[in-house]
């Protein structure tokens, strides 16, 4: 801990000439710290802060057609327009929440179950782990096209399988009502392995003694899981949940690859991300798109803060 020094200053707030403090190791170290940080700060400033501020700035203008075209400052008009849009914005926000909550919930439950199953070594475990990470390694667009072919209502293999066991064929991604649930299941297929691996890593760090003590006390498997393992795993679980939730909120590639612009013919899979992309690249409404993206970013930050607070409470 460093004590704060009070230095003599003039009324203008500047040091009087000739009254420079001595150069100490600590002071030099403090300056060196900034020099070492400069490349990283420069990168963050250029690649994150500047685009964010640029987008924020665009959100207050009527930018249309080209980003560098003449534009006027219109204050909060874009934000008001977005928030008053019950045809596209709010349904897209609702779908974003439904998709994220639904997919992440299933992924967490399945991921936890698989992690518990794989906790103890068994024959062929390396094979199982390798197979498990295959969906993670595949690019989302390829996954989208793959599932589009599998689930094609006319020529896809999924309906052939359903018919072969006497079940009626489904429209899957071709249906307005089935599209979002189908996309959630595709997301579950791709991302459950990540949850499994994260939770498996968390489980491997847990001490065995508390569980063994509970066993000696007569606790059954469910009780040991519910009252011993889960509380100890909670920090890992919440971290995995935050990471996956933020990622799921931002899902774009699979949605666009399978449903195209606007999330399908009835906007049935249009999330905020897809909506903002459409505003930018299909409609060239850069001002409105920026406002939607700012609102979306605030929403994501809100979700993260909420989840962190919840995690903090539970840990406390």
């Amino acid at each position, binding site marked *: 801990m*460093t004590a704060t020094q009070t230095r003599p200053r003039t009324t203008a707030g500047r040091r009087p000439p000739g009254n420079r403090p001595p150069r100490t190791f*600590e002071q030099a*170290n*403090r300056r060196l710290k900034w020099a070492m940080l400069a490349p990283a700060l420069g990168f963050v*400033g250029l690649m994150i*802060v*500047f685009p964010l*501020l*640029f987008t924020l*700035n665009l959100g207050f203008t009527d930018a*249309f*057609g*080209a*980003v*560098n*075209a*003449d534009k*006027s400052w219109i204050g909060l008009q874009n934000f008001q327009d977005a928030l008053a849009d019950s045809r596209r914005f709010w349904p897209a926000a609702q779908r974003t929440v439904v998709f994220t909550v639904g997919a992440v919930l299933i992924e967490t439950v399945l991921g936890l179950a698989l992690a518990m199953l794989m906790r103890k070594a068994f024959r062929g475990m390396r094979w199982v782990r390798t197979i498990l990470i295959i969906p993670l390694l595949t690019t989302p667009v390829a996954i989208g096209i793959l599932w589009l072919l599998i689930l*094609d*209502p*006319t*020529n896809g293999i999924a309906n052939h399988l359903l018919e072969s066991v006497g079940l009626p*064929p489904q*429209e*899957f*991604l*071709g*249906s*307005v009502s089935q*599209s979002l649930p189908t996309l959630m299941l595709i997301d579950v297929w791709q991302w459950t392995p990540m949850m499994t691996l994260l939770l498996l890593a968390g489980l491997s760090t847990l001490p065995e003694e508390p569980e063994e003590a509970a066993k000696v006390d007569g606790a059954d498997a469910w009780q040991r899981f519910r009252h011993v393992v889960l509380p100890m795993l909670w920090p890992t679980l919440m971290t995995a949940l935050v990471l996956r939730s933020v990622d799921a909120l931002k899902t774009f590639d699979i949605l666009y690859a399978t*449903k*195209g*612009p*606007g999330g*399908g*013919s*009835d906007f049935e899979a249009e999330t905020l991300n897809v909506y903002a992309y*459409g505003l*930018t*690249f*299909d*409609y*060239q*409404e850069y001002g409105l798109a920026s406002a939607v993206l700012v609102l979306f970013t605030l929403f994501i930050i809100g979700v993260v803060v909420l989840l962190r607070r919840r995690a903090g409470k539970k840990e406390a």
Partner: protein
Amino acid sequence: MSTSSQPVSRRSFGKLAAVAAAAVAGGSALSSCATRSGTASPGAPLRVMAINHVWSHAISGRVAELEERIGRRVSITMLTADQLASSYNVKLNASGTDVDVMMVRALQEQLLFAHNGWLTDLTDRARGDTAYDWADFQDAPRERSVTDGRVLSIPVVTERPALYYRKDLVEEFGGPPGTLEDLLEMSLELADRRRGFFGYVGRGQRSGAVSQWSSFLYSFGGDFTVDGRSAIATPQAIAAYELYGGLLERTGPPGATNMSLEQAMPIFAQGKAAFYVDADAIYTNFLDPKISTVQDTVGFAPFPAGPAGSRPHNIPSWSLAVNEFSLLRDDAWEFIRWASSPEMVASLQAEGIPGARSSAWSDRATLTSFPADLAEAMRINAENGLGHDRPEVLQVGRARDIVGRPLVAGILGKSVPGIARDANAEFDDFLVRDNRHREPR
């Protein structure tokens, strides 16, 4: 070694914020002021961005002769239509000089690109060159290349809808349907959806289906706009919506609202549908035994007539333009002049790529590569055709989304008139805003 952590003071934060704001403002100002400057190095290639299309492949195979003439390498990048549009958005928003010749969809992008100042004025080069013969281009494609009196693109590939049908199935009806009513009746009769056979297949996606639906609309006597106002809730438009929706809803495959060309075409190619209306340029897919089971039974017919006759679209599906920020505009024009010359268009058309020059169409030798009935259907459709297949506005994407809404309702079996009236009001509002965007600031 000690560490210290000092919170950022209000003053430091203020300074940081001021610097960031200045950077944003500066960035905005710089991007607004960005202009073309400098010259290209002698070794720089002429960069062409093109759609992944048979035309691009054919040109790519011939480009050596042009390279020799202009003394510069030609680099052709081929992308899908969506990728191409996104690339232009990114590159030209940054006033990029790394693209010289742009392959554009005149009806989709030209008005917007012209509004943004992204296209070079080619008027003097096209009209002032007697050997090039600008007047030789067909009326509809030529008119669509001109915006505010300036030639901004040159059409290289044209497109009309063709009625693809199964010859073996229509024999009992005495031939393919001549009217849209006949098309619906025959589709209903031939469909056996329980056994996976469909009467009609076609595009059903909200935005993607609009261009094919336009021929139905015109043939019912309607149009997207009349006197600058929305006309998508007129009785003619509603009848067109209902007929197209009914064809897919009552006789089409499941999941039709998720179908674009990529999903619809294989269904007909696999022999699972009796009729299919789509661009005549894709006919080779049905003659290729590797992907088609109907190469011996597919027939081609002109677009069926509606109450207003047969009024298909006849449009420049792909055109060439020069990037306003290009440093090689003379060479870029040389490329376009060569690729759209009367000789080149005739040569490409003889290989099955329909061009936009009247001289090529009047030369029977250029049509020998097409099946005889397709060539005849193309000729008739070109004669009857209208020069647009989507609303002629700045924001074509948004307009298509609005116009396509009643179309989707029809395919889903919902009542069309109410949704068409709602879409009509939305389209009217949109047209007002679109016109406002067109006004100079």
